[in-house]
């Protein structure tokens, strides 16, 4: 299956060595952003070039790869990256969270609990959590060196002053192993608790910004908050319209121009798994009816 013109998993060996060394340091210093010599990839920045480079550096022929984009296995970005590695590395791919050994993700953590033999690779657009508060790299670097994170608390406080609650809904800052404040990538804050004490290794790759960072398995990850305004994950107050799940993260889908909308699981594998197990939501009737009709006619 290997395309003859490219090395296994696309990247050349020298690049892989460089990325691998960065990954080892990232794991040794949880939450610290290790600079690396990010390469141009055959896709534009913002489409997961960082995640793709990390995946290419760790992927082997025995791996089973799953790629999700906002929880979905079926979007353009997810399909393209999955096909890219099927072509350049010949690896098996899957949409099942349980069967995957490497999961590359854009902006979600799967609903199904991860296990020890898995690596979760995040695509990260802006790795520096302090960047919008302090544009100078020299300054943010010094702030991390001194663990000077007062500015981030001021930002969360300003949310409370303005809106009455912490209004940050995604890319919600976390503190890793009680030291580094880290950007979890633009995952909804609903997913933050899943990062804490996770059995799987979590790797983060930012291609344009040239940073790799990591959370080792079983590492404490705490969402920043205040005693009187504790962290709260947010979820639309509705069951999934397809599988009736009450505890999954939901996408809001506008269904007409009269304000109708439906809420469905963002994690397609989780939702399909539940439907296959017989769970049905309020709007999952259509395929079910078609089948019943076909049976009646036949």
């Amino acid at each position, binding site marked *: 299956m290997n395309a003859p013109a490219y090395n296994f998993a696309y990247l050349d060996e020298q690049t892989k*060595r460089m990325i691998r060394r960065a990954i*080892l340091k990232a*794991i040794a210093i949880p939450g610290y952003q290790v600079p690396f010599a990010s390469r141009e990839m055959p896709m534009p920045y913002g489409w997961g070039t960082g995640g793709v480079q990390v995946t290419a550096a760790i992927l082997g*022929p025995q791996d089973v790869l799953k790629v999700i984009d906002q929880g979905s296995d079926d979007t353009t970005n997810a399909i393209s990256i999955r096909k890219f590695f099927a072509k350049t590395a010949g690896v098996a791919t899957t949409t099942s969270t349980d069967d995957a050994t490497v999961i590359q993700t854009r902006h979600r953590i799967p609903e199904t609990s991860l296990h020890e033999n898995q690596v979760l690779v995040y695509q990260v657009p802006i790795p520096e959590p302090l960047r919008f508060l302090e544009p100078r790299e020299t300054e943010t670097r010094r702030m*991390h*060196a001194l663990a000077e994170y007062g500015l981030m608390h001021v930002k969360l406080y300003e949310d409370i002053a303005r809106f009455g609650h912490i209004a940050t809904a995604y890319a919600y800052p976390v503190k890793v192993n009680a*030291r580094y404040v880290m950007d979890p990538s633009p995952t909804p804050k609903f997913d933050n608790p899943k990062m804490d004490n996770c059995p799987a290794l979590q790797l983060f790759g930012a291609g344009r910004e040239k940073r790799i960072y990591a*959370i*080792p398995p079983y590492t404490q990850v705490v969402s920043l908050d205040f005693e009187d305004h504790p962290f709260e994950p947010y979820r639309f107050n509705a069951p999934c319209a397809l599988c009736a799940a009450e505890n999954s993260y939901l996408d809001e889908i506008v269904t007409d121009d009269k304000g109708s909308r439906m809420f469905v699981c963002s994690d397609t594998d989780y939702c399909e798994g539940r439907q296959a197990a017989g769970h049905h939501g309020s709007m999952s009737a259509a395929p079910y009816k078609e089948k019943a009709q076909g049976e009646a006619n036949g």
Partner: protein
Amino acid sequence: MTTIAELPPGFVDKVLSAQSTFRSVMDAMARPGAVQRIVPMAGTPDAMMRGTAAIALTLFDHDTPLWLDARMSESSDVLKWLKFHTGAPVIQDSSIAAFALISDGSLLPALERFALGTNEYPDRSTTVIIQVDGLDAGRSFELRGPGIDGVATLQASIRPFDLFERLRFNETLFPRGIDVVLVADDAVVAIPRTTRVVSKGG
């Protein structure tokens, strides 16, 4: 004199062997204390274990200044093999080394002499690879820290005997520090700077 043809060989399959070796080292670093096996084998020059040789072929290149202990740096076999297969520059000044290879723990210099990184760039530190007698039997050590679910127990016969006492300086240095990779034949265990070790004796 050894010619290139007489040098011990590198990996049979450069690409997949390096990938497999890296995953073992990555898993070791992510789960301190857990023993990982290095499967792919390469030729080993005198004084180098199989695991050490595989790690060298996987991680070293012209970008990684290398510091060798006395036994390794006196072996022309080792020097030629490293030069031919990895191209990594061997340096005398341990404080700028990306990796250090210690063939025999009794030759380990004071850890302060290696690169510890800076508070701004703690990743610019030496990864010290130490060959030890065994990672399946010997004294018990209790390990805690990121990557460990509660407590991990490592049984190892290690020299220097006070290695883990010496590594305590990682506690006060953090985020600076030294990451250690222990190798015994094809077994590998990593002790990153976040791991705290309590000796249980025995």
